[in-house]
């Protein structure tokens, strides 16, 4: 808005009708000089010109940084698309390595724009599986944060990422510290299967009127949970002992991501949630103690509701039965019980 009279007048000028005059134009003055010119080339003084385009590595890094830190969501999506195309080419171009790539891009799981999230999922799908395995611990953290996000869209999309992780690294997922218990409790909380056994007499009346979208999400959550449980509770078969195993154990460098993790040499002291549960029995034990009741109750409730969620719940029920069928509740003393005695 123009403040001064001058500015106002200037603005007014735009809307004034020009007065057209009929007749000849005013004759040019006798000393008139025509200063207009035409040229075939324009010369610019300063210009960075190079004959080669920025190389692929530079472009990749540039796009990576754009994807992880640009404020414009279109730019983020485009950068992700570029990265995806680079990774899916043959041979895949990845100058920074999967681990760094993931550590930069995983925070985008809870990105606010939907196209960015879907593009991220596409990118994750083209990552080489055996390399992505090593970032499981990081990935599950962001997935948990995404699943519990206040926005329903984000939590729905992060289920897709969870699916990806189950495809890629299901064994690592259930064995890493915190991977089993924390993820399970996240699932329970997002589905509203309350963990703390509520005070007797009152049932909380959450999830009455389900919207169609909610029901869909619930079905998806249940199906993914059943996959997760299958992964965690599947029967383990001991690998056939090879002849070199003894010597390998002694002399070869370990090849898994964090070999001595179970010793927890550097981290802080873990509680029950953050503990790692390396074998099936341990997982069964902790599952039975903490999640069995709420999950079975939840399954019953969803089954009664029927629909897609009900069908998914039947699948979950089956997974639970096959996983926990051979577990005897009182099979020996648990370490946690011993600790609780203190």
């Amino acid at each position, binding site marked *: 808005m123009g403040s001064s009279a001058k500015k106002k007048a200037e603005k007014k000028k735009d809307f004034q009708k020009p007065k057209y005059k009929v007749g000849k134009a005013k004759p040019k003055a006798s000393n008139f000089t025509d200063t207009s010119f035409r040229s075939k080339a324009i010369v610019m003084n300063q210009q960075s010109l190079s004959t080669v385009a920025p190389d692929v590595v530079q472009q990749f890094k540039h796009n990576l940084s754009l994807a992880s830190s640009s404020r414009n969501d279109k730019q983020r999506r485009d950068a992700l698309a570029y990265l995806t195309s680079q990774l899916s080419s043959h041979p895949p171009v990845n100058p920074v390595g999967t681990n760094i790539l993931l550590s930069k891009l995983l925070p985008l799981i809870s990105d606010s724009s939907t196209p960015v999230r879907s593009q991220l999922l596409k990118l994750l799908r083209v990552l080489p599986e055996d390399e992505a395995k090593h970032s499981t611990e990081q990935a599950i*953290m962001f997935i948990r944060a995404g699943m519990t996000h206040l926005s329903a869209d984000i939590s729905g999309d992060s289920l897709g990422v969870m699916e990806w992780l189950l495809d890629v690294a299901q064994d690592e997922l259930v064995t890493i510290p915190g991977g089993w218990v924390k993820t399970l409790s996240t699932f329970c909380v997002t589905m509203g299967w309350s963990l703390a056994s509520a005070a007797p007499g009152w049932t909380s009346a959450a999830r009455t009127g389900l919207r169609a979208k909610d029901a869909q999400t619930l079905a998806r959550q249940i199906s993914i949970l059943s996959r997760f449980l299958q992964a965690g509770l599947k029967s383990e078969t001991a690998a056939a002992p090879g002849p070199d195993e003894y010597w390998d154990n002694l002399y070869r460098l370990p090849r898994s991501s964090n070999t001595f993790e179970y010793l927890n040499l550097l981290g802080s002291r873990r509680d029950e949630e953050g503990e790692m549960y390396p074998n099936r029995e341990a997982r069964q034990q902790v599952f039975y103690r903490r999640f069995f009741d709420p999950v079975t109750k939840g399954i019953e409730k969803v089954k009664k509701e029927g629909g897609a969620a009900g069908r998914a719940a039947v699948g979950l029920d089956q997974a639970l039965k096959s996983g926990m069928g051979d577990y005897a509740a009182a099979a020996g003393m648990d370490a946690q019980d011993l600790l609780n005695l203190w």
Partner: protein
Amino acid sequence: MVKRKVAALEKIDADFASLQYKIRRDPKSYKDDFLKQWEQYEAQREIFFMSPTTAAADSVESFHNMIDLIAHVADCYPEETRTFPDDLKAIVSQNHETLHHELRDKVVGSLVLLRRKEVIDSTSLLTTLFPILVSSRSKSMREMLFQKILSDMRNSNSKSTNHPLNRTIQAVLYNLVTADRSSPRAIWAIKLTRELWKRQVWTDAKPVDVMKEACLADNEKVVIGSVRFFLGGDKEREELEDESSDEEIDLAKVKHQITINKKSRKQKQAYKNAVDKVKRQEKKKSKPHPLNFSALHLLHDPQDFAEQLFTKHLQSTKNKLSLDTKLLVLQLITRLVGLHKLTIVPLYSWFIKYLTPKQQSVTSILASLAQGVHNLVPPDALEPLIQKIANEFVSEASASEVAAVGLNAIREICSRQSLAMTETLLQDLVQYRKSKDKGVMMAAKGLLSLYREVGADMLKKRDRGKDATMGISSGLMKQRKFGEEEVGGIEGLDLLAKWKEEQRKRKRAEKGLPEDGSDVSGDEKDKDEDGFNSDEWEVGSEDSSDEGEWINVEHSSDEDEPAPKKRKGDEEDEEDNEEDSAAELERMTKLATTTILTPADLAKLQELRAAASVQKAMGSKFRKNKHQQNPDGPTHADDGLTAENIEAPIRLRKLTKEEKVALAKEGKPDREEHKSTQAIRKSKKDAAGKSTSNREKQRKKNFLMTLGKAKSKQKRSLVETRKVLKGHVERSTRGGRRRNGT
């Protein structure tokens, strides 16, 4: 942390504020949502702890939001959020150096919020925040923490004193001060103690102990802070108290406002608050005044403290305190010496070196010296000092100001220990009363009048004056010996006695008896009060007992009247005037020993004392030269001596412009611009919310408006005139008001 743009849909979706509101309204129903957010918080915390230093802005922001939400609803789910306070404490105490500043502030704010919601207690909050305050390198953080700590201390002491908390914090402060004497960290202990002392949250000996330890620190800043506390902390406290009691609320005004303005709930609330406040103030007024001892009185073992201060900061040659600091320390030491009558003999010889006119801020050194003298200081220690002051300052060659300062200093010292003066020196110094300079002349006169009171026989005969000469000749006036103490009395008791005497005379006059039959009276009341044995006079006097029903039980005179006094009462008439007055004085002082002072008496005593002091301050002719030295009014024994007192009195000093202006303005109405007195009065009236009077309205009425009435008055018929006149009479019966409708 620039906020990323949020899409409109998402805004509705991810609205923490509305979720928080819903949860707080109905915690039970929203428990599932809360649990989800709690999981989110856990996940965010994990992500954050993965790399607390290099966290991206986004993750910091979402963590910030989660902390905010959970802190606000933590009291609704105490079981679920059990670990939350400890998490926050861990975050802020481990990472406060590296945290993003907004997140850091949020964590601290959330902890304080949890404290307000009574989720955690003050002790755990303060023991978390205080170490951070001490060690943080960020100024804004320290400022915030200090504010939070202070307000929490005040809040937890507001209803009643929270002794356990105070003890804990005081112990923490004490340890902080004593742990490392050379570190500047102790400054925070000082700041906190000083602030809490000022606000009367802490009034006991323990904070004084903390300050005492801080005084003995090696760090100069710490020393300055703590010494200033002792020198000025109590004054600060008094000033704050005065300030807070100043604001008065005019209830009538508030009430009136309500009748005028629109009625609203807000106004009602405001009125209620005002009533509450007034009630609280009344209650506060009627409460007994809290005993607030000054910090100097609460010191434990002042002798040892003063000695330590002296040896550590002044006597030792190693320390590198600046002169200003040294002066402060010196002030504190001498104040302690004067107040508690301590004996530090090396202190006086330490002064010698500094007593030259060229010494920087010598007046304050002289003031310190004077306030460090009391009647138990050996005169031998002071004599060389006085000699040196006299030699260096007081001579014909030195400037007049210098001489005046020297004389004043000598007078101040001698008023505290008169035995330090030698006869020849005194007679020399007194000669300066003939000086042409007014400052020197007055200083010398002050010294002279001082010695007329305390040691007149050291003066030459012609200088002694009438009172002193008579006193010496009658043997009443003697110089006090070293260590001799004056007999104590109740201040103003003579005033009370005089007043009682006058009252009795007045009463007698009312009854038509001779006024001067002072002690021998038939009045029963007198007898009761003074217990004079005057039974034989009673026959003559008409007993007009107005208080008929009252039976006065007489004391037996032997019980409460000492024998010699009775005799004196009988013989009084025959004695001459002088004797009479002396005896009177003696009797007055005995008032307290012979009668029991009732509360009414004590109240009267207080009143008389106040009146006397006002009269003294007003400068009436009763003013004694005893108070000449401080024109600002009488000083209390606890107040220290300042350089101002030593320098020439304020009247003699050249006034600065501001002082002159202030002096001229005194007692005049304040005017911002040049206006007539009338205009000022009117604007004052306007400011007080008063409108104009009827007379004023009449006077100001437009002339043209009055014209019509005047014209019509002339044309009125007799009937109309009668009606008007009747109406006037009728109105006058109703207070001048018209009826409705006319």
